[in-house]
């Protein structure tokens, strides 16, 4: 079985000429099938940059970056857009569309698939919302939900399309401790039951326990790659 993420000797720099600054230096990173990997490290160490490369949000400059079986080095914009449809993203803020209900927001992730009908999309959205514990809130707009509930809607939106990989960057940063833990555990449980791999960036030491493996970065390099103490499935 192929690894969902297979990054080899990736080097990335922002700026050009005299302003050019390398923020990733020959980084190797692998996320196995169904594996939950947490990426940590000090601010500015390049975690987010690495995540955007794996998420096909940025063009690869040097090295090889295979995601869900696709080589992203040299990939065209349209290929990257197509690959993003198979990845579930969870951001620091929920970024839900304020004028849509929770159900409609989740269904937006399915509208990219021409094979689904409106009924099916809404049914799947409702089912997904139910599995994040928001069955009664499906018709509400984000403005009517709490911060934790909104982030759970974002989790539902990321998962409803059955992505092959979930990428999350500090998904708990905007939440209090209890709802942060709740969201991450929910994410872990749902990913586990579906066998979906997760690459999650966090500073938050309280959620490290969900990881199968913890990768630490510093100054653009991977400095530690430990099997976590969490029990593997």
């Amino acid at each position, binding site marked *: 079985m192929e690894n969902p993420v297979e990054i080899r000797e990736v080097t990335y720099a922002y700026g050009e000429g005299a302003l050019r600054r390398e923020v990733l230096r020959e980084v190797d990173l692998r996320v196995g099938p169904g594996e939950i990997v947490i990426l940590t490290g000090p601010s500015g160490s390049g975690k987010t940059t690495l995540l955007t490369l794996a998420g096909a949000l940025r063009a690869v400059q040097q090295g090889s970056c295979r995601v869900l079986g696709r080589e992203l080095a040299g990939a065209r914009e349209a290929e990257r857009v197509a690959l*993003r449809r198979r990845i579930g993203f969870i951001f620091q*803020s929920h970024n839900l569309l304020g004028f849509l209900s929770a159900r409609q927001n989740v269904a937006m992730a399915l509208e990219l*698939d021409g094979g689904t009908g409106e009924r099916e999309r809404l049914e799947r959205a409702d089912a997904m919302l139910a599995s994040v514990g928001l069955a009664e809130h499906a018709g509400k707009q984000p403005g009517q939900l709490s911060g934790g509930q909104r982030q759970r809607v974002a989790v539902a939106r990321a998962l409803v399309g*059955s992505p*092959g990989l979930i990428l999350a960057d500090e998904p708990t940063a905007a939440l209090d401790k209890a709802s942060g833990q709740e969201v991450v555990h929910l994410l872990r449980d749902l990913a586990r039951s579906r066998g979906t791999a997760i690459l999650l960036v966090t500073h938050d030491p309280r959620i490290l326990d969900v990881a199968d493996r913890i990768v630490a970065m510093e100054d653009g390099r991977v400095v530690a790659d430990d099997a976590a103490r969490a029990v593997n499935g």
Partner: protein
Amino acid sequence: MNAMSDLRPAARGAMRAPGFLSGSWLAVRLAWRQLRSERARLASAIAGVMFACVLVFMQLGFRAALFESATTLIGAMRADLFLMSPMTLASFRPETIPRVRVSQALGVEAVQAAVPVYLAQASFRNPESGRRRMIQLIGFDAEAGVLDLPGLAAMREALKQPDTIAFDARSRPEFGPVLRMFQEQGPFAVQIGNREMRVVGTVEMGTSFGADGNAVLSEVNFRRAVRERPQALVDLAAIRLKPGADLLAAQAALRAIMPPDVAVLTQEELRRHELRYWEEATPIGFIFSFGSLMGLIVGMVIVYQILFSDIAGHLKEYATLKAMGYSNAHLSRVVLGAAGILALLGFVPGTIASAMLYGVIADATFLPLAMATERAVTVFLMIFAMCGVAGLLAVRKLRDADPADMF
């Protein structure tokens, strides 16, 4: 672990993007949901489009009314060919031609009749208030029946009497309640120039930008009313051909015998000559085009600002959609869909308002203003293009929604 992996839905690789139609439908629906969520903004956008729509309808309406009314007189004449001075710019301000050209025309075999037409502006005293106002006098041989105006045929005999006129009932009201007075008391005296003349009937003709009102009278009476006009000069000659005669051949034959002080025009040519004056020689055509353009630009700016601020205010959401795999093209369709919705929502009430305004203005100005399907289609296309351009300008803002900056 591996057993878990098998739970993954097999359909992943088979995912295909929605077709163009269903994709567009989803884009437009999203656009509508976004527009609908902010009522005040939607209302102001619709008001902006409506404003542009009404303005363009008014400008085009006035323009068409001007051009239509400018040729009322020509259209009312039952003639195949016309002799006119090549110096004449427009019929309300004609240059004269020698009267002898009219009889010369009879020398062409195909010509059945040739009649002089006299045109002049003279002051008309309002019989009620006594105020003077310039009226268009149209003099012609009452016997020949060159003019084909509703009500005129019945008055042929009456107009032969000395100092009689037929008043255009559709003249502007500033000339006084002539029609009502005539209906109440029969023929009565009015003052034209310094002469006392009798209104012996009314015709239906209509005002134009060149004439606020019209009076029809016989050749002899015209000369009495317009004393300064030398006998030997006329303004226009209307020529009727024998049945079955070839129009262009007759025109060529007339041109061959006429000296260069007259031009030989068909009715259609004369009408176009008249229109060209208003369109090209006066700034009026330009003013209306300019007015329409201004309306469209104002509307475009309003729609652009609404669409732009919708994008600018939701950059994170748009970037998130891009991260989820929405293409720039699809999001552009959302923005253009919003533009299309605004075009439609502004056009419909704008057209209804314009139709009502046309009625009000037509009553007040006596110009032939009315909603025409062809014009409505034109305005719809203009409004659509206006919103389309605004949409295309706003779409550029989508580039600022960069999913790489989302994390």
